């Protein structure tokens, strides 16, 4: 009972702040809506017995990525957008979105998903996640580290000189 109440609170928070992100006119409040959405998605993870991902989500998104984005908005995104989105583009965006949502919810309602049982004691703890990561997923872990180094070098190189 408490869990479903918490779920609906966090889901409402996520929903409202993502609507804020998409529909607010100005760039900076929209990106703050993104930060709120990321925090409340992270809180939803803790309801799924993954508190580790709550911390990762809040530190990574609401911390690192959003600081970067807000820095970008404040330093570069000042320019007024003059021309509006055309009406046909808006209508087609809504049609695509509603079609996606309709088919998605139809698939979900057709498939009888079982209710979950009470999780075992250790499930979702940081120890278990770390053990699984280095035992079963060691190679993807190393590949991810290479990708992160390449992305870091590439972003420094891209931001240093302007596009010709």
């Amino acid at each position, binding site marked *: 009972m408490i869990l479903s109440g918490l779920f609906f609170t966090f889901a409402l928070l*996520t929903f409202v702040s*993502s609507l804020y992100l998409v529909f607010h006119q100005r760039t900076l409040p929209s*990106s703050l809506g993104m930060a709120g959405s990321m925090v409340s*998605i992270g809180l939803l993870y803790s309801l*799924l017995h993954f508190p580790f991902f709550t911390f990762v989500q809040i530190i990574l998104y609401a911390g690192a990525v959003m600081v970067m984005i807000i820095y970008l908005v404040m330093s570069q995104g000042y320019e007024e*957008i003059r021309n509006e989105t055309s009406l046909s583009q*808006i209508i087609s965006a809504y049609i695509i979105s509603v079609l*996606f949502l309709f088919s998605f919810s139809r698939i979900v309602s057709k498939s009888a998903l079982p209710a979950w049982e009470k999780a075992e004691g250790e499930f979702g703890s940081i120890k278990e996640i770390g053990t699984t990561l280095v035992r079963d997923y060691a190679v993807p872990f190393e590949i991810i580290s290479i990708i992160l180094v390449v*992305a870091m070098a590439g*972003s420094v190189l891209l931001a240093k000189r302007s596009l010709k």
Partner: protein
Amino acid sequence: MNITPYILLAGFLFSIGIIGVLTRRSIILVFLSAELMINSTNIIFLGFARLLENYEGAMMTLFILALSAAEAAVGTAILVSFIRKTRTSDIDSANLMRW
């Protein structure tokens, strides 16, 4: 409590992200809406990891998080150099590869 509301929430977030990507003018907000779509898939992965009580979905989420951090870094660098070149954040100015 079961997994269905989580999946429906993820579907809602994904369709909001679609609207954001297709209708916003600022290139920064298009980027942020794409991030929102990535995060809605993470909810589904973690929900099924919880339902099946194994760690495969959780590992997938971990890798998606790492990849989207890398993507945010590269994306921000591209946005900085794009805005520096075109002097605007209007998405219609992104016509460098159009012919």
